[in-house]
């Protein structure tokens, strides 16, 4: 019981940090997936006096991924009131060309501006419709959401770090006496601190396992998966190997740092 109590505060602190980090990762992945989704549906319409080939478009801006030529038939149909076929063919030739450009990713407002400028620099392009108002609103909303989560994760991490520092003082007090006594009998630093490092590593392993279990449960939850389906995105909530090792690494580094701080702050008492 006493042993569990000794470990609990550090484990809880480590779990909170790992939890915030993973939540931030999930939000970032969701936003990226959502952006990709938006990018697939987002397009820029370009009106040109003359034909511009796909190659030429690709040379204008690297963001351009796909070029579709919009057929003028719909417009002509609306104008078709007693025009004969030869005139209609001539009209078709003289009408400007309409292109729909799909982009590689969901662009930032700056990238949109740049794309618009690059397109208008082409002497045949007479109009570019980038739907920037709608785009900017969505983009800013996503960035805001991401930043809010980042700030939240940072605050949680900061508070937890303070908790860890407090825990560190308790550990320092608890281990100082034993370390001093061992020092009086000539124990080298590594031996004096061995227990401390062992405890921190055990706590790091336990915290990583707890976080692994929590996120494995979340990742297999139907409710969560349905929520993601509802917004039409598919996200890896928790990669059992990759994410686990990243979190485990962070946890080990943090706890070793904690133990090292205690060892460095140790003062011999006689």
């Amino acid at each position, binding site marked *: 019981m006493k042993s569990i109590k000794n470990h609990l505060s550090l484990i809880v602190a480590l779990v909170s940090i790992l939890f915030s980090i993973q939540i931030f990762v999930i939000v970032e992945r969701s936003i990226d997936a959502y952006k990709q989704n938006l990018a697939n549906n987002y397009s820029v319409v370009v009106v040109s006096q003359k034909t511009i080939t796909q190659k030429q478009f690709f040379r204008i801006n690297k963001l351009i991924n796909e070029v579709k030529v919009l057929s003028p038939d719909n417009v002509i149909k609306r104008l078709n009131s007693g025009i004969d076929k030869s005139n209609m063919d001539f009209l078709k030739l003289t009408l400007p060309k309409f292109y729909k450009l799909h982009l590689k990713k969901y662009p930032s407002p700056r990238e949109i501006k740049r794309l618009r400028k690059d397109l208008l620099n082409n002497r045949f392009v007479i109009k570019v419709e980038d739907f920037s108002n709608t785009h900017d609103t969505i983009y800013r909303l996503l960035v805001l959401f991401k930043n809010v989560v980042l700030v939240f994760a940072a605050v949680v991490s900061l508070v937890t770090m303070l908790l860890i520092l407090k825990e560190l003082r308790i550990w320092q007090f608890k281990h100082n006496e034993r370390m001093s*006594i061992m020092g*009086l009998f*000539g124990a080298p630093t590594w*031996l004096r601190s061995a227990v401390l490092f062992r405890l921190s590593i055990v706590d790091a392993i336990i915290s990583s396992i707890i976080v692994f279990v929590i996120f494995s449960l979340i990742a297999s939850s139907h409710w969560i998966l349905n929520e993601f389906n509802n917004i039409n995105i598919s996200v890896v909530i928790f990669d059992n190997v990759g994410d686990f090792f990243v979190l485990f690494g962070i946890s080990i580094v943090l706890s070793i740092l904690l133990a090292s701080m205690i060892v460095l702050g140790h003062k011999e008492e*006689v």
Partner: protein
Amino acid sequence: MDKVIVAKNVSLSYTADETIINQANFSVNSGSFVFITGASGSGKSTLLKSLFGAIKLKQGSLVVGGVELSKVSRSKLNFLRRHIGIVFQDYKLVKEWTIEKNIMMPLIINGYEKSVMTNQVESLLKHVRLKHQAGKYPLELSGGEQQRVAMARALSHNPILILADEPTGNLDEYSSELIWKLLEGANTQLETTVIVVTHHIPSSLNVDYKHFHIEYGTINEIN
């Protein structure tokens, strides 16, 4: 005879203005039994602490077991301490360890094999008459019993030098006698050098001893 301690012009202090031991010169032969006496606050314990490098010298040269303590590295100091057994007045036992593990500590630090450690601890527990208490924790024992554990710990690794700071200061007669017998035995049977800081030299002791008395920061040899 080899000298285990050689002090030349040793001055000790905790602060810059105050000198506790002033320009002390003395030596201790290997295998001898030494008492250090003096009034409270005379610097007995300070002198003892300087012998295992717990206090830095203000001035002079102090060689213990061939190690010059005036300019000693951490690793050399650890090496020296691994060959010294120390008994403190306040025992300095690790509270979260059983008495068995406390006695084993110097053996663990010196890297002994598990079977050697077990045999040695068993034999020492018998000597200090605490075999039945092996699994208990220090705070479950009386002061006298804790000091006997500390004594066993100091003897466990067969040190070349035992330093004891008022080892019987707060003890009952039975425990005091046992401690003196163990110190006497270590000195006569194992030829371990023993240095004891005390207020009273026991009359029952059957060893030839050297007596240093500290007064006003000066160490005088009395015989």
